[in-house]
């Protein structure tokens, strides 16, 4: 009887061990894929903010270009990381369209925002999505979302006319940094 109970305990411990390892591998895979995306979008955002600082009159054009380039690159990276089904592609596109659509409703239609509010608004929308996603997909997303949101709010109030450069560093740099951390996690 003792032998049976030891065997049961041993088997249960082995199954727990397997479950833990599988969860860690899956988490690592999520972080690795998300890390690549964060580095990509972080670099694009940093570029967008610097260009906006240099040529504010052309900001809309720059950001439209960045969204298009980023979307194409995101799909290309996804395809490179394994078979991407048509359904998955559409989900990526639909997710971006929904977030951008929501943002446009507020920034262009209901919000009556100036450049400063707009520069602070978009990062907080995306970071809100990261924070919520992090409740399911890993705490690093929550840390990223809350940290960049807090720094964005601080920059909105205290960075003066250098807000766009500040955002290049905070949002672009923060996303890239988090991306590198995720890829190593």
């Amino acid at each position, binding site marked *: 009887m003792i032998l049976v109970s030891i065997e*049961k305990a041993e088997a249960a411990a082995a199954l727990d061990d*397997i479950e833990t390892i599988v969860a860690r*591998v*899956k988490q690592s895979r999520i972080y690795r894929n998300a890390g690549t995306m964060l580095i990509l979008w972080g670099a694009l955002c940093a570029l967008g903010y610097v260009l906006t600082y240099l040529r504010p009159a052309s900001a809309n054009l720059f950001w439209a270009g960045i969204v298009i380039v980023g979307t194409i690159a995101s799909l290309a990276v996804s395809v490179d990381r394994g078979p991407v089904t048509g359904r998955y592609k559409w989900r990526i596109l639909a997710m971006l369209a929904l977030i951008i659509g929501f943002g446009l409703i507020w920034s262009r239609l209901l919000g009556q925002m100036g450049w400063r509010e707009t520069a602070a608004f978009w990062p907080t929308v995306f970071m809100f999505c990261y924070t919520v996603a992090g409740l399911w997909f890993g705490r690093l997303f929550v840390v990223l979302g809350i940290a960049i949101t807090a720094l964005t709010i601080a920059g909105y109030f205290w960075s003066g006319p250098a807000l766009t450069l500040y955002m290049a560093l905070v949002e672009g740099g923060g996303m890239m940094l988090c991306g590198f951390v995720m890829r190593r996690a």
Partner: protein
Amino acid sequence: MDVPNEVIHQSVRLRIMAALTALAPNEPGLDFGRLKKLTGATDGNLGAHIAALEKAGFIDVEKHFVDRRPRTTVTATSEGRKAFAKHVAFLKSVIGD
């Protein structure tokens, strides 16, 4: 009734197989450093267990260079996946799941 797999049952080898089979067959395997982190084994210990699993035909080991640095990538073979699945079934049968 299912029977235990003696090669896989050892705890480090069980962890190696659990990690490798968590990946889809078409995904690239795990490198040595990642496996070391996941299993908590030392370099020598992990190397010995990888060699045992490779000898049993449960994993493939590929050595290559990335940025001029040697890298060892390990993947589960289809035989290894089947053996691991059978071993998990055995463990579940023991606990009466």
